[in-house]
Every structure is written in C-alpha cells, then in structure tokens.
C-alpha cells in the first residue's frame, strides 16, 4: 500500500516538474541567482576572515626597556608581562640580538664596520597577546610599567585593519541574511503560482479523500529538488570562478592576498548552500500550500 502511494507521489513529482517546466525553471533560476550572490558574499567574507586571522597572527608588540634599567627591574618587568592573563607569550631580545637581526636584515652591510660606538639599540620584550585585538589597550597599560621606554605595535595600521574587517564581516552577514530571506520569499511566490495552476487538481484530491500529506508530498519534493539544483549549480559556477581568481592572483604575483585554498572554500560553501537551498525549496513550497489545503 505504502509503496504504491510512494511510486505515485514520485511519479507526480516528476510529472509536475515536467508539466510546469517553465515555472520550475524560473523558480530554480531564482534560487540559483540568489544563492550564487550569497555564495559570492560568503566567499569574500570567508577570505576576509582568513586574511584577518593571518594578519592577527602576526600582530605583536614590542616593549622596549629603558637603557638604564637595572637587572632587577628587567626581571620584574619580564615576570609582570608573562604573568599577565591576556598575554600568550613573552620573549626577551637583548640589544645584541637586535643588532644581530638588523645586520641580517641589511644583508651584511654592517659587517666588519665598527663605529667604535656602543650598541644604540634597546633591549626589549616581544609580547604576543591572547586576543590580537586587545593589543591597543594592553600597549597603553604596559607603557606605565616601570622600566618601559616605549611600546610599539603598528599603531594606526592595526586599528584600521580591525575596523575594516569588522565592517566587511557585518555588511557581508547582513547581505547574506537579506538574500536568504529574499530567496525564501521569491521561491514561495513562484511555487505559489505552480500551486495556483494546480488548484483544481488539489480540490479534486480533497474531494476523493486524499490526506493533506498525500497532496503536499509532490510539492514538497518538487521544492526540495528545485532548491537542491538551485544550490548545486551556483556551487559549480563559484568553484570555476574561484579557480580563475586564484590563478590570476598567482599569475600576477599578488601573493600578499592570502587566499583560502579552493577545497576549503568549496566545502564551506557546499555545507552551507546545499542545505540552505533545500530548506528554501521546502519552505517555499510548504508556505505557499496552506491556503489551498483548507477545503
């Protein structure tokens, strides 16, 4: 009994899709375009997030020690910094090490060049914070510690970067939510038209004693299928476009744009877009049916 009903429902779904192929094409197209845009924003957002993370990883501050600070003050400062709960790691760099680094950076230009002067570079603590965004606040705090000459953390640049990424994320999120709602709205309207075209048939079904679920299933499956196809196609398109973009970035040696690998992006998109498409399709079809079932 059940199998017969199932075969019928499946057959009805396919027939329904064929009979209303243009309408289905439109609905699927609507989902496709919306999800494509959604996917694009998501890709941009994912990468913005990734770039921010990478940059955040690199954010650190340098606490320079006063030249005349005695050993006890330096040790006390080191303890205070490493004991701070918002500090992830502290490394002491002596003035000699600084000089060594400088010589390395300058590619041996200073080698054998002895000015006879004392090393002018200050010793320092390189501090990594638990939350990179706390760097600005903590720099202000550490400046007041005894024995501290100055604190550097890329003032201005870090603040701007965090502000920009926050705006990008918020705008992206707002757009994504807006687009998802639009998609539900559009597909429910397009499916409502298909239902409207089959209103007569639904009424007949009710008269001969069909249950609401018997009537609903083909529309439910139709919506699901349209949502699925409407999500998989943009996924393919996005994969193609992303591939081209990453190739372009590599070809133009814009390596400072630290992009996420294709596979990571596609998996994230698939996990998000395919269920979303299916849910949009189901919501669209069920939301549009209620009124017609009340016979």
């Amino acid at each position, binding site marked *: *009994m*059940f199998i*017969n*009903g199932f075969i*019928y429902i499946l057959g009805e779904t396919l027939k329904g899709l064929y*009979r209303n192929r243009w309408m289905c094409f439109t609905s699927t197209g609507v989902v496709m375009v919306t999800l494509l845009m959604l996917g694009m924003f998501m890709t941009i957002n994912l990468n913005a997030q990734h770039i921010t993370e990478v940059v955040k990883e690199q954010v650190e501050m340098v606490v320079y020690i006063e030249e005349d600070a005695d050993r006890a003050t330096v040790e006390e400062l080191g303890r205070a910094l490493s004991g701070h709960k918002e500090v992830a790691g502290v490394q002491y760099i002596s003035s000699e090490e600084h000089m060594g680094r400088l010589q390395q950076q300058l590619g041996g230009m200073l080698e054998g060049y002895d000015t006879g002067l004392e090393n002018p570079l200050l010793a320092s603590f390189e501090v990594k914070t638990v939350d990179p965004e706390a760097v600005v606040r903590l720099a202000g705090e550490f400046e007041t510690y005894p024995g501290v000459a100055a604190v550097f953390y890329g003032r201005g640049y870090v603040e701007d970067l965090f502000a920009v990424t926050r705006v990008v994320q918020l705008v992206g999120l707002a757009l994504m939510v807006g687009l998802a709602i639009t998609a539900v709205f559009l597909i429910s309207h397009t499916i409502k038209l298909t239902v409207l075209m089959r209103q*007569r*048939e639904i*009424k*007949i*079904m*009710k*008269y*001969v*004693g*069909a*249950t*609401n679920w*018997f009537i609903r299933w083909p529309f439910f499956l139709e919506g699901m299928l349209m949502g699925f196809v409407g999500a998989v196609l943009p996924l393919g398109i996005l994969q193609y476009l992303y591939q081209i973009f990453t190739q372009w970035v590599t070809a133009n040696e814009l390596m400072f744009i630290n992009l996420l690998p294709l596979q990571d992006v596609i998996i994230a998109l698939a996990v998000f877009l395919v269920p979303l498409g299916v849910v949009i399709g189901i919501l669209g079809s069920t939301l549009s049916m209620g009124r017609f079932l009340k*016979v």
Partner: protein
Amino acid sequence: MIEARNLGMQYGRGKQLALDNINFFIERNEFVFFVGSSGAGKSTLMKLIIRELKPTGGVLKVFNRDVSSLPRHRLPYLRRNIGMVFQDFRLMEERTVYDNVAFALIVTGKSRREIKRRVPPVLSMVGLEGKAKAKVTNLSGGEQQRVGLARAIVNRPAMILADEPTGNLDPGTALDIMNLLHSINLRGTTVLVATHNREIVDRFRKRVLYLENGRLVGDEQKGIYTNVH
C-alpha cells in the same frame, strides 16, 4: 445515515442565512432529491455533508457522527465514504479515463493490482468500456459525467452526493446519468441529488426535499417538483 437538527448556516455576520433551521433524517439506501431554485441552499447543504463547510447552528450527523466535531485530519476518511459528482465533472483534464477513476483508489492507498482489478468493471458499468485510454478532454459531456460517476463509485462508498449532475447535459444524456444513479442506488448505495431539473424529479418519483431561501419547505416521499413550485 444523515440527520439534520435545527441546522443553520450563515456565510458571515449580518449576512442572510444560507440555511435556516433545517430538520430531516435520511435512511440508509434512500434516494433523495434536494430541489429548489439557485441560492435555495442545496449546494450549501452538500458542502456541509462533506464538511467543506462547518454549520454555524444546529447539528448535522453523517454516518451517525456530528461532522462539526470531526477533526480536520479525519476528513479524508469521511470523504472516502462519500462519492461526489459535480455539475462541471471536475476531472483531471490532462489524464486518461482510467487514471481519473484509478485516482480515487490511489489516494486511499490501494495496491496497483487492486486498482487494475477494480477499475475495468466500474468503467463497463457506466458504459465506458473501451474508453479507458482516452483523454477525458476528448469525451462528450455525458461521457465525462460517466467518468465522474465511475470515480465516485469505485471506492464503494456508502453514499453518493451529486450536485446538479445533469446541469450541463442534454435531456437524453441527463436521463442516462440519472438511470445510472438509480441503478447504483438499487445496489445499496444511498444517493442524494441536488437538482432543479423538473423533468428528472417528476420522472423518478423519489423522496423530495424542497428548499427555498435556505428553509426546508417540503419533504415528500415519491414527490414531484411541481408540488411547491
């Protein structure tokens, strides 16, 4: 089988009563005509019986059950026991005669084998043998109503409800359809026919319930249309 007690129906507040204080009792296996002019309340009464509408007053019992208290999810099971025939046939136009009739069995979950066994005899009973594969849009009005009848009886319902079944048919075809309904009644199915076809009512001499402006103004065994009108 059907009992109406002080039955009333109003489509909206302040509107005229579509049915006003109706009382009747219909036994199993009866053949009853509901007659009256357009707007008398015949179709409203039919819609109440299949619970397409809920009465706004009184009680209506179908198969000894108050239809007002029937939960929505039970409605399909009530309707499977009532075969509906309409003036405009209400067939699925894209489909064949066989599909239209089989449809009533599919929705009740009958197996394919059962459907194959049941549909052909019903088609031959209504005189459509050999037309199973025809699209319903290629049939005449009378033939389409036969499909409607076949669909109504294929589930072996206890009752047939026919709302103006001959309204769109010429007199000869109308008589054929009524004869079919009569033979269905003789096999033990209760038949209720809403009509304003005077000739048909007078010819069959069955029980007649007369409706006028929503009120039941007459109830006669072996009645004729002209008694009141």
